[in-house]
C-alpha cells in the first residue's frame, strides 16, 4: 500500500505540477484579456510607434518638397521652359552700308513674313491651297511645301518669308485662324554691282556671307528679338509674347567713294574688253590715312542675286588674289638698297649687254642699257641692274624689307579671306632666288599689299593698315576708326628719293605717255610679271601699274592689275598705264586737287562766234593770257576741224558735241579719225593723233624697245606717235607750248627737299637724255 501510496503521491505530485503549470497558464491567459489599462497601454505604445513612423514620412515629404521647389527649382524651370516654350528669333533690321559721302550702298527693307501656328490649323491642305492662291509665284510644289509645313506638329511654321506688303494684305484678308505676320527685313543693293565683292551679300537668315557684310556682321546685324510661344504638351499655343524686341544694326560708313568706285569699275570693264583680259582689279588708297577709296574687280556680280554669280565674279581680287609683282617689286629692292646705303641713286651700274648670267641662269633686259645710274635702273626697269644691287644686299636684308613693307602678312581684319601672300624665308633663298625676288618673282603679293607698300613710299615712309570702314554709327553715336601705323618702312629721305625716282618712271621711263596727267606730277612703277598657273609660268602676263598722284603731297595711291590680256600687248605700261591715268585724272579732278605744275592756258568756249558775249569776253582778255577762243560752230552733228588745236581744246570741242575723245601722242592735233564736216552722233569716239608742230620724227636709236613694241602691238591708236613720244620723253599731253616746259615753276615744288628736284620733270633734263 505504501508503494501504491508513494506512487500515488508521486503521481499526484506530477499531476500537481502539471496542474500548477496549467493553472499558471490559465492565470496568465485570464490575465491577458487585459484590464482597460493594459490594452490601452499596448494601443498607446503601438500608436505612438505608428505616429513616429508617419511623422518621419511626413518629414521626408516636406524635405522632398524643399528639394524640388527650392534647390532644384531653377533646373526644373529650365526643363519646363524647354518643353513648354518655343522661341523664334525675330531678326533685327540690318544696318545700312553707306559710302564716305553718305551714298547708300546697302539697305534693308522690312518685309512681311507670314507664319502659321500649325496646331491651330485643321485642314493643312485646304489652307495651303487658299493661301497659295493669293501669293505671288506659288505653284504646285510651293503649295505642297506649305501644306507639309502646316501639317507638322509644331507651334510655328513659316508660310512665306519676306512677302510683299500686297501679299501679306491679301493673306490677312482671308482671315484664316492660326496665320500670323511679323516683320523681317530683306537686303537690297541699290547700286547692284557697285563694290559688290567688297560689300558682299547676306543670306536668308540675315547673316552676312561675304565682304563687309560678313566681316562686320556682328555690328551690322544688330540684336535679334525673341518671340516666345508657350504651348501645352500637345503643342497647342497658349500664348505668345515678344521676349525681346529686335535692335536694329549699326550703320557702317565705308571709306569707299562711290563715285571713284564707279569710275574704277568702268575702267576695269573697259580694259578687260579692250585687251580681252580674263580679269582686272584696282584699288585706290589714301596714302596718308590708309582709307580705301575704291576697290574693284572685274568680272563682278550682282549681290541682289548673288546665287547666280560665278565663282570668279565673287572674288575680291584686291585681297583674295595673289600675284607675283614683277618689276613693281624693284621699289622694295631700291628701298632696301638706298636705306642700307648699298648704293646711291647716282651710282653708275653696268647693265652689260642686256643680260647677265647667274650660274646657268640668264637674266635679261628688254634692251641693252650699258652703264647707267641706279636711278635709271629703276626708271628703265632694268632687271640686270636691279639684280646686281640685290646681290650686294643679300637675301637676309631683302627679305627683311619685303616683310617691313607688309608683304607676306594679312594687312587688315576688315577683309574676310585675305591672302597673306608668300615671302620666302631668307635662309631658303639661293642667289638665283634672291635675284628672282629682287625683280618681283618668287614672291606673291595681293594688290592691297602693293597699295599699302606704295602708300608708305608716298607718305614718307609709314606703313598704314588699310581701312575699309570709316565709322560705325549706332544709337545716335558715331565712332570713327582711326589711322593705324604698322611701322616705318624707310626713312623720309629715302621715301623722297623713291618718290622722285617713281616720278621719273612716269616722266621718261616705262610709264612715259601712258600715265602722265596734265597739271600734276605722278609717281608710278610698272610690272609685267608672267602669270603663274597651276604652279608653272604660263605664256601670258599680268601687266600692272602702281603709283600715286600727285607725287608731291599725294592724295591717291592707285594699283591696277590686268590679268592675262590677249589682245593689244601685254606690258604693264600700255595695258594698265592708261587705266591708272584715267582713274588718277578723274580722281584728282573730282576731288579738286590743285595742280602742282604749271597748267596750260585756259580755254574759253563760246557757243556762237558772232554773239556779243564772245566779243565781250574777247575784249576783256589781255594778250598775255593768250586764250584761244574756239568757235563751237559745230552745231549738232557736224564734225569741226580740230587740227592745230591743243589736246585740251580739242577735247572740249568734242565734249560739247557729246563725242568721246581718245588721244594718242602729245602736242597739237595732227589728225582726227572723223573727217571735218562729217555727220556725227553723240557718243561716237573720235581718235585724235597729237604731235608737236612741226612734226619732226625724232627716232633715236636708244628708244625704249619695250615701249615701242607695245606701241606697235596696241595698234593705230598708239603707233602713230608712240615712237617720237617716247623719244622726247618730257613733253606733256596738254600740248602746252614748249617754252612752258622749259622752266620748272618753283611753287609746286617749293620747299620740297628732294634731291632729284633739279631734274624732276624739267625740260632741262632733255639735255641729259637717259640713253
Amino acid at each position, binding site marked *: 500500500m505504501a508503494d501504491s501510496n508513494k506512487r500515488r503521491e508521486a503521481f499526484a505530485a506530477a499531476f500537481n505540477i502539471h496542474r500548477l503549470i496549467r493553472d499558471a497558464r490559465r492565470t496568465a491567459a485570464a490575465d491577458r484579456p487585459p484590464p482597460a489599462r493594459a490594452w490601452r497601454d499596448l494601443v498607446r505604445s503601438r500608436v505612438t510607434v505608428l505616429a513616429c513612423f508617419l511623422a518621419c514620412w511626413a518629414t521626408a515629404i516636406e524635405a522632398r518638397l524643399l528639394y524640388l521647389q527650392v534647390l532644384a527649382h531653377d533646373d526644373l524651370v529650365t526643363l519646363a521652359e524647354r518643353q513648354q516654350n518655343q522661341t523664334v528669333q525675330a531678326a533685327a533690321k540690318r544696318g545700312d552700308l553707306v559710302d564716305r559721302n553718305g551714298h547708300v550702298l546697302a539697305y534693308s527693307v522690312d518685309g512681311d513674313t507670314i507664319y502659321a501656328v500649325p496646331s491651330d490649323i485643321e485642314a493643312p491642305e485646304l489652307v495651303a491651297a487658299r493661301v497659295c492662291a493669293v501669293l505671288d509665284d506659288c505653284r504646285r510644289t510651293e503649295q505642297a511645301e506649305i501644306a507639309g509645313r502646316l501639317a507638322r506638329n509644331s507651334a510655328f511654321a513659316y508660310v512665306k518669308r519676306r512677302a510683299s506688303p500686297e501679299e501679306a494684305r491679301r493673306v490677312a484678308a482671308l482671315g484664316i485662324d492660326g496665320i500670323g505676320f511679323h516683320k523681317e527685313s530683306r537686303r537690297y543693293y541699290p547700286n547692284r554691282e557697285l563694290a559688290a565683292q567688297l560689300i558682299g551679300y547676306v543670306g536668308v537668315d540675315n547673316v552676312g556671307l561675304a565682304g563687309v557684310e560678313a566681316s562686320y556682321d556682328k555690328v551690322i546685324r544688330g540684336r535679334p528679338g525673341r518671340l516666345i510661344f508657350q504651348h501645352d*504638351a500637345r503643342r497647342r499655343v497658349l500664348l505668345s509674347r515678344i521676349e525681346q524686341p529686335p535692335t536694329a544694326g549699326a550703320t557702317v560708313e565705308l571709306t569707299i567713294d562711290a563715285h571713284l568706285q564707279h569710275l574704277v569699275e568702268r575702267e576695269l570693264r573697259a580694259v578687260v574688253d579692250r585687251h580681252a583680259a580674263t580679269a582686272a582689279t584696282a584699288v585706290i588708297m589714301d596714302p596718308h590715312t590708309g582709307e580705301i577709296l575704291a576697290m574693284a574687280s572685274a568680272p563682278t556680280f550682282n549681290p541682289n542675286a548673288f546665287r547666280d554669280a560665278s565663282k570668279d565674279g565673287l572674288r575680291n581680287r584686291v585681297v583674295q588674289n595673289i600675284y607675283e609683282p614683277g618689276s613693281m617689286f624693284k621699289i622694295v629692292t631700291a628701298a632696301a638698297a638706298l636705306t642700307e646705303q648699298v648704293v646711291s641713286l647716282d651710282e653708275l651700274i653696268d647693265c652689260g649687254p642686256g643680260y647677265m648670267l647667274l650660274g646657268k641662269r640668264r637674266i635679261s633686259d628688254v634692251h641693252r642699257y650699258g652703264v647707267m645710274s641706279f636711278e635709271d635702273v629703276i626708271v628703265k626697269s632694268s632687271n640686270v641692274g636691279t639684280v646686281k644691287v640685290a646681290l650686294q644686299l643679300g637675301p637676309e636684308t631683302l627679305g627683311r624689307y619685303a616683310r617691313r613693307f607688309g608683304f607676306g602678312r594679312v594687312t587688315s581684319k576688315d577683309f574676310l579671306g585675305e591672302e597673306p601672300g608668300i615671302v620666302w624665308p631668307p635662309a631658303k633663298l639661293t642667289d638665283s632666288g634672291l635675284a628672282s625676288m629682287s625683280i618681283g618673282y618668287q614672291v606673291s603679293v595681293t594688290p592691297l599689299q602693293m597699295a599699302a607698300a606704295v602708300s608708305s613710299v608716298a607718305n614718307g615712309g609709314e606703313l598704314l593698315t588699310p581701312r575699309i570702314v570709316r565709322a560705325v554709327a549706332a544709337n545716335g553715336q558715331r565712332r570713327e576708326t582711326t589711322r593705324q601705323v604698322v611701322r616705318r618702312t624707310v626713312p623720309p629721305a629715302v621715301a623722297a628719293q623713291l618718290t622722285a625716282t617713281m616720278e621719273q618712271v612716269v616722266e621718261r621711263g616705262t610709264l612715259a605717255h601712258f600715265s602722265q596727267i596734265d597739271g600734276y606730277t605722278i609717281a608710278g612703277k610698272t610690272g609685267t610679271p608672267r602669270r603663274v598657273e597651276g604652279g608653272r609660268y604660263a605664256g601670258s602676263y599680268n601687266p600692272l601699274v602702281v603709283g600715286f598722284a600727285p607725287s608731291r603731297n599725294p592724295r591717291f595711291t592707285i594699283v591696277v592689275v590686268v590679268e592675262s590680256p590677249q589682245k593689244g600687248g601685254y606690258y604693264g605700261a600700255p595695258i594698265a598705264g592708261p587705266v591708272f591715268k584715267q582713274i588718277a585724272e578723274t580722281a584728282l579732278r573730282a576731288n579738286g586737287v590743285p595742280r602742282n605744275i604749271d597748267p596750260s592756258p585756259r580755254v574759253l568756249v563760246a557757243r556762237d562766234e558772232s554773239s556779243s558775249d564772245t566779243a565781250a569776253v574777247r575784249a576783256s582778255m589781255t594778250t598775255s593770257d593768250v586764250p584761244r577762243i574756239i568757235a563751237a560752230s559745230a552745231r549738232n552733228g557736224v564734225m569741226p576741224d580740230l587740227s592745230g588745236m591743243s589736246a585740251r581744246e580739242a577735247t572740249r570741242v568734242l565734249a560739247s558735241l557729246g563725242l568721246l575723245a581718245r588721244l594718242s601722242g602729245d602736242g597739237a592735233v595732227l589728225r582726227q579719225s572723223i573727217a571735218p564736216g562729217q555727220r556725227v552722233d553723240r557718243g561716237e569716239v573720235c581718235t585724235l593723233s597729237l604731235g608737236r608742230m612741226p612734226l619732226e620724227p625724232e627716232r633715236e636709236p636708244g628708244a625704249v624697245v619695250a615701249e615701242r613694241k607695245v606701241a606697235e602691238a596696241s595698234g593705230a591708236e598708239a603707233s602713230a606717235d608712240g615712237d617720237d613720244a617716247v623719244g622726247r620723253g618730257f613733253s606733256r599731253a596738254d600740248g602746252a607750248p614748249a617754252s612752258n616746259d622749259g622752266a620748272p615753276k618753283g611753287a609746286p615744288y617749293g620747299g620740297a627737299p628732294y634731291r632729284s628736284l633739279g631734274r624732276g620733270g624739267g625740260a632741262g633734263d632733255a639735255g641729259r637724255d637717259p640713253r
Partner: protein
Amino acid sequence: MARKLKADKLLFLAVVVLVALSAVMVYSASTGAAIDQTGPSYQLMFRQLTWGVIGFFLLAITMRLDYRTWQSPAVIWTAVLVVAIALVAVLFGREINGTRRWFAVGGIGIQPSEFAKLAAILFTGDLLARRMERVNDVTGTLLPIGLVTGLFTILILLEPDFGTAITLLVIVGMMLFAAGLDYRYLFGVGLAALPALYMALISADYRRRRLFAFLDPWDDPLDSDFQLIQSLISVGTGGVTGRGFMEGVQKLSYVPFPHTDFIYAVIGEELGLIGASGVLLCFGVILWRGLRIAMSAQDRFGAFLAAGLTALVAAQAFVNMSVVLGLLPTKGIPLPFVSAGGSSLLVNLIGMGILLNVSQHASADG
C-alpha cells in the same frame, strides 16, 4: 461619463480646409482636361462641390451616430457582403481607361473599391476589438482578417487598381500593428518586401538619370516615368510661392490626371512650397488628431476604428504625395478630400464622421 459630447474641432477644420481647397484646385487643374473634352471647365468643380455637400451631410449623420452601432455583426457582414458583390459586379461593368472600377448609377460613377476600405476597417476593427489578445493567433484572428482583406484585395487587383489594393493592405496592416501584432510578422513582411524595395531604388536611379537627360515630351507620353518627370517639373517650377492660381502650365497635358491622382503636382506648381506644405500640414493635423483619438478611445473598437480611419486618410495621402514627388513608384491613387472623385470623397467624409464620433466618446484619461 456624463460629460458633454465634444467633437474634435481641429480635425473637422482640417477636413473643411482640404475639401474647400479641392473645389478650387479641381477647377484649376481640370482646365486642361476641359480643353480636351471641350466641356465647360467649371463642370468638374461643380460636381466636386456637389459631392462635397453630400459628403458633409453624411459626415453630419455619422458624427451623430454612435460608432458602436457599426459594431453589430449585421451591419458589418452586410457591408462586407455588399462590397464583395459590388466588387465582383464592377468587373462586368464598362471599361474606362482600360480598367473597370466604376459603377454607373444614374449617371454617377460609384467606385466600390473605396467603400471596400471602409468595410474592411469596420470588419477588422470589430474582430480586433473582440480578439485583441489573440492578435498573433493565425487561425482565430489573422486568417479571418486575411480572408476578407485578401478577397477585397484580389477583386480590386482584378479591376485593376493596384494603388487602392496597396492602400487597403496598408490600412489593415496599421490596424493590426496598433492591436499589438508581433514584430516578427512585421519583420517577415519587411523581408518579403526587400526585393520590391530594391526594385524601387533601381528605378529611382534610372528615373533620375532620365530626368536630366534630354527631355522629349513626345517620347512615350504614356510611360510612367514620363508622368513622374512631368510631375516633378510641375512641382519644381512652383518654387516657394508658386506660379499663382490658374497659372500652371504643366497641368495642360504634361502632368497626367492633373485633377485626380496628380492634383498635388498642380498644387505644388500653382501654390508653391507654401501651398504644398499647407496641404501636408492639414493631413498632419488629421493624423495627429486621429491617432490621439485612437489612444484615448473609450473602448477597443473605438481605438482600432480611429486608427484605421486615420490610416485611411493619412496613409493614403502620404502615399499619394510620395508618388507625386517621386518617392514611391508611380501608382494611381487619389489624394483624400482633394482629388476629384465622388466615391473617394464620400467614403473619406463618412470615415471622418465616424472618427469625430469616436472623439466624442473619449475616455476620461484620454
